[in-house]
């Protein structure tokens, strides 16, 4: 306990967690937008869009995140000279968010698709027979119900995203938790267990409320049929 207090006073652990939280929030936003677009493509009547979305999702779902992150850094930036900003830290930050968003959007799409499967086919037929267009029935009828039906898998995806945000270290975001943990171990070899506990407890504190909120929302928003 004393060791943990010493470590906490010597290192700015909350600042590192704040970096992971920011990475998570930005990536959650972008992957949600991208995931909705992908799932709409997957249920669209246009075959080529369905094909593209399926290929995109399968690719990013099955690609290890570390490889995506290393590609963002060595492939997209070093080789292809793609950059968001001439400032390294800003650039790496957004490259990491891009990688996380691409990867997570595949899982958002899959979560939403599982939600769409809970919406009876009759809902879409009723919408279409009333004269609603594809976008209207998707946006007003199918997706709102699908969201309510996929709160639980979306919550799990968010938890996975928060944990995955530590992989941003592979895209040279050096201020996040896993990097700080390595540094702390490097200089405090005698207190490795305490270092580990600090980060484990930190993530538990962040993740348990997400789980509780997910369960509560899932029950509150469930569509009664």
């Amino acid at each position, binding site marked *: 306990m004393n060791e943990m207090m010493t470590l906490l006073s010597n290192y700015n652990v909350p600042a590192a967690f704040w970096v992971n939280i920011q990475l998570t929030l930005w990536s959650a936003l972008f992957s949600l937008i991208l995931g909705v677009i992908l799932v709409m493509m997957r249920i669209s009547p246009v075959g080529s869009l369905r094909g593209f979305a399926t290929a995109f999702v399968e690719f990013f779902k099955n690609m290890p995140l570390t490889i995506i992150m290393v590609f963002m850094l060595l492939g997209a*930036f070093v080789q292809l000279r793609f950059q968001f900003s001439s400032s390294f830290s800003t650039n790496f930050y957004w490259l990491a968010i891009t990688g996380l968003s691409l990867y997570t959007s595949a899982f958002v799409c899959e979560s939403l698709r599982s939600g769409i499967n809970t919406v009876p086919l009759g809902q879409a037929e009723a919408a279409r027979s009333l004269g609603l267009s594809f976008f209207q029935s998707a946006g007003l009828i199918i997706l709102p119900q699908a969201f309510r039906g996929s709160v639980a898998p979306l919550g799990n995806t968010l938890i996975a995203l928060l944990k995955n945000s530590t992989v941003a270290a592979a895209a*040279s975001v050096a201020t996040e938790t896993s990097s700080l943990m390595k*540094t702390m*171990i490097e200089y405090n070899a005698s207190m*490795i267990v305490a270092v580990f506990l600090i980060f484990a407890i930190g993530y538990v504190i962040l993740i348990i409320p997400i789980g509780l909120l997910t369960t509560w929302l899932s029950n509150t928003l469930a569509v009664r049929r």
Partner: protein
Amino acid sequence: MNRLTKKIFAAVLAVVSLGALAGCGSSTVETSGPKITIGIKFDQPGVGYKEGDSYSGFDVDVARYVAKQLGYSEKQIVWKEAPSAQREALLQNGDVDFIIASYSITADRKKVVDFAGPYFVAGQDLLVRSDDKSITSAKDLNGKNLCTVSGSTSAQVIKDNFAKSVQIMELSGYAECVTALISGTVDAVTTDDIILAGLAHAKGNGLLKVLGKPFTKETYGIGVKKGDSQLVTTINAALKKMVSDGTWQKDLTKETGGTGYTPNKEWNPPTKFNAENSDETVRQ
């Protein structure tokens, strides 16, 4: 091959290559007789490096010499990867007999492991392109791009003490940093001078040079399990012999030759093998 077999084959191949990418995995060569397990780095060319089934680098040379003095032949050595964050645990659990892995002696580490040596005194330095005249010291890095490996604090040392406006890129390995340096994405790579010299020797193709102005003092020791003073004494004797019979200098030249690098003469080769009492790493 039918389709299913192909799929399974592809899947196995993918898993195996992932394992290789993650860089975890230890060598377990089956040999007869007693064995000695030595922890080294697998990813530092010129210091501790694994390529296929062969191991090279100055740490490996020292390890082989010490093992020989302890009565183990080359074939009786089992090499095990000792990443920075796992070194103490490997020793505490008895997974390795000793560790030679650019392992700096610090007061904090001495609380949990014992050290023999030192066998080399390194210092943090810079690796730059040979034709780049604009960087002659760490202070010249203002506005430049600097590469180091993830989890290392050497770049932060420069930012905090010498060049406030340096831009830092962290990559997963030193080899990647060298690639970025040669391609011009970064202007310098920083870590201990001997590692940089090894990199320049192994990967530089004559295009890179070590600045040769170390600004920290890193005293490399050989980590052993806490309390094994017998082993510490034996290893220290072996190191003393290695320096006096000229093997130390011969091996160092072999690993860093052709890069214009000479280790800090004031500190090297070490003459006092008393890691237990003094010669601690000095970090700024």
